[in-house]
């Protein structure tokens, strides 16, 4: 098994590196080209990089485990993200895309800074990206480390291999190598997940004598850790958990720089439409597959290995590796590499995005006579630095993959109101005090919740009135913006 995995991993790495090297033919040079592909990326590549950036190791590890432990509510949590993202990409998205080309925006922090005419605001948001996204990046690396452990390899080796792949595929051609390798990895991810689903439904479940009726029966009468019976096909989450987990993801497309940047890159309107269409189809299929895997895994384990059923609820990130280890070594290796690919494709987009924000809004903004090549080099160095910090966090093995990833999004929630209002109203300097107040209040609530409950429970624990912190963070940041909207309309 280990040798087959290493052979397939090598194949994947060599294939990805060749694709990255080939992508250099698209490069025209300069910082803009390095970060947003010179706004010349086609529809298919844009869609695949959007999908591969969004869907990380969280899907095949975190979501499968979450579904296994808590049931079909995880489907609602993941699909509400998809529906709201399609809403954002089809309403405000086209406006962002057009303005980005007109105003030559390369980073979302630059975009917000220009909408409110403040370099300081742009710089502050670039720093916020670093703070919020480094744990998100570390979560991807941790996922890979756990996959390596499940296979019988070293956790640390997995993390280091992931760092190397991430860095090389950024350094070769910036966005071009990231987007092309994302397309390669996105196709690998979906193909592997379809293969695993077919194997589970057509072989694994029947081999344990489980049909659809029995599966549903097991899920409807599942056991909890305290030995209660719970219906995993019903709404088994608390209200606070569902709102707390879902809310950051509903605004993900507006708050996370690695995906906002993807809105800038399609070369024309046709490419933009293709990006949204293909992403929607990809997201829908991939989500259904991962939730199906989680539910099917629960049914299978409950029948074939009842002694570990409850243990896996406690160690839910181990559900996928446990099930995949039962497949043929070639299939399981392809699936494990697909999880590796999902993590790397998200990690390289996050690292490039945050590093480009640092370069644009902390270096170029304050420098005179900036050399384009030098800016690209600074981006590479910032990427390396960020990866090394994430490496240190990943070695510390902090909390669950799901919570780490979603907590990062929670910190970024206050960016949603100022982005929407900024794009719609373009308030310039007069909107700045409102934007700063909004950001400060929203962040204060998020930080308070993390301090009170810790990162693992900051999203889901009720903060006030039995409602979770992300909702209060959003409300706190929305109130100053509503005041700004009123003020701007009154002036006009």
């Amino acid at each position, binding site marked *: 098994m280990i040798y087959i995995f290493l052979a397939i991993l090598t194949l994947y790495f060599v294939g990805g590196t060749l694709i990255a090297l080939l992508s250099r033919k698209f490069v025209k040079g300069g910082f803009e080209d390095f970060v947003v592909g010179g706004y010349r990326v086609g529809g298919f590549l844009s869609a695949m990089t959007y999908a591969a950036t969004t869907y990380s190791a969280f899907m095949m590890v975190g979501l499968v485990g979450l579904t296994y432990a808590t049931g079909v509510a995880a489907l609602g949590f993941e699909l509400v993200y998809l529906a709201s993202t*399609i*809403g954002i990409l*089809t309403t405000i998205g086209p406006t962002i895309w057009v303005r980005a080309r007109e105003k030559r925006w390369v980073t979302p922090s630059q975009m917000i800074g220009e909408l409110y005419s403040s370099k300081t605001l742009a710089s502050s948001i670039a720093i916020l990206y670093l703070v919020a996204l480094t744990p998100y990046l570390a979560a991807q690396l941790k996922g890979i480390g756990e996959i390596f452990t499940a296979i019988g390899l070293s956790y640390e080796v997995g993390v280091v291999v992931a760092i190397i792949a991430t860095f090389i595929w950024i350094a070769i051609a910036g966005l071009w190598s990231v987007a092309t390798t994302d397309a390669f990895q996105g196709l690998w991810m979906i193909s592997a997940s379809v293969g695993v689903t077919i194997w589970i439904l057509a072989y694994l479940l029947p081999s344990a004598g489980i049909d659809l009726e029995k599966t549903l029966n097991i899920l409807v009468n599942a056991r909890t850790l305290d030995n209660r019976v719970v219906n995993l096909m019903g709404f088994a989450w608390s209200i606070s958990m569902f709102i707390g987990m879902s809310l950051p993801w509903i605004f993900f497309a507006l708050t996370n720089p690695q995906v906002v940047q993807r809105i800038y890159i399609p070369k024309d309107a046709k490419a933009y439409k293709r990006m949204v269409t293909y992403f929607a189809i990809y997201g829908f299929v991939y989500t259904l597959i991962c939730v199906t895997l989680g539910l099917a895994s629960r049914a299978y384990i409950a029948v074939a290995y009842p002694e570990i059923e409850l243990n896996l609820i406690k160690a839910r990130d181990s559900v996928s590796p446990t099930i995949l280890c039962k497949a043929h070594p070639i299939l399981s290796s392809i699936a494990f590499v697909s999880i590796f690919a999902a993590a790397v494709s998200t990690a390289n987009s996050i690292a490039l995005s945050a590093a480009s924000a640092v370069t644009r809004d902390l270096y170029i903004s304050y420098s005179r006579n900036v050399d384009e090549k030098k800016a690209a080099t600074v981006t590479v160095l910032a990427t390396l630095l960020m990866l090394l910090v994430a490496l240190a966090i990943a070695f510390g093995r902090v909390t669950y993959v799901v919570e780490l990833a979603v907590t990062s999004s929670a910190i970024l929630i206050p960016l949603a109101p100022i982005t929407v209002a900024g794009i719609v109203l373009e308030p310039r300097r007069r909107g700045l005090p409102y934007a700063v107040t909004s950001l400060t209040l929203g962040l204060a609530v998020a930080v308070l919740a993390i301090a009170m409950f810790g990162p693992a429970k900051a999203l889901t624990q009720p903060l006030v009135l039995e409602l979770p912190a992300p909702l209060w963070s959003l409300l706190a940041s929305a109130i100053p913006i509503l005041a700004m909207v009123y003020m701007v309309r009154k002036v006009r």
Partner: protein
Amino acid sequence: MVIIRSTKIVLISFVLIVVLFFIPMIPAIGKAMENFNPLTLALYWVSLTVISIILGLATLRGVER
């Protein structure tokens, strides 16, 4: 200039779809869905997503530049 036809209607529709995702949180409705059929809740969320995709793609047809 980018034009999106019926932006306000589309925006309201998407907000409504997102709100509808949270309806099963109401205990009485969640329980009724559970009792009706084990697949009701999953199919409800899947249907909402399909509607959002169809609405999104229809909206994109109206995007011009």
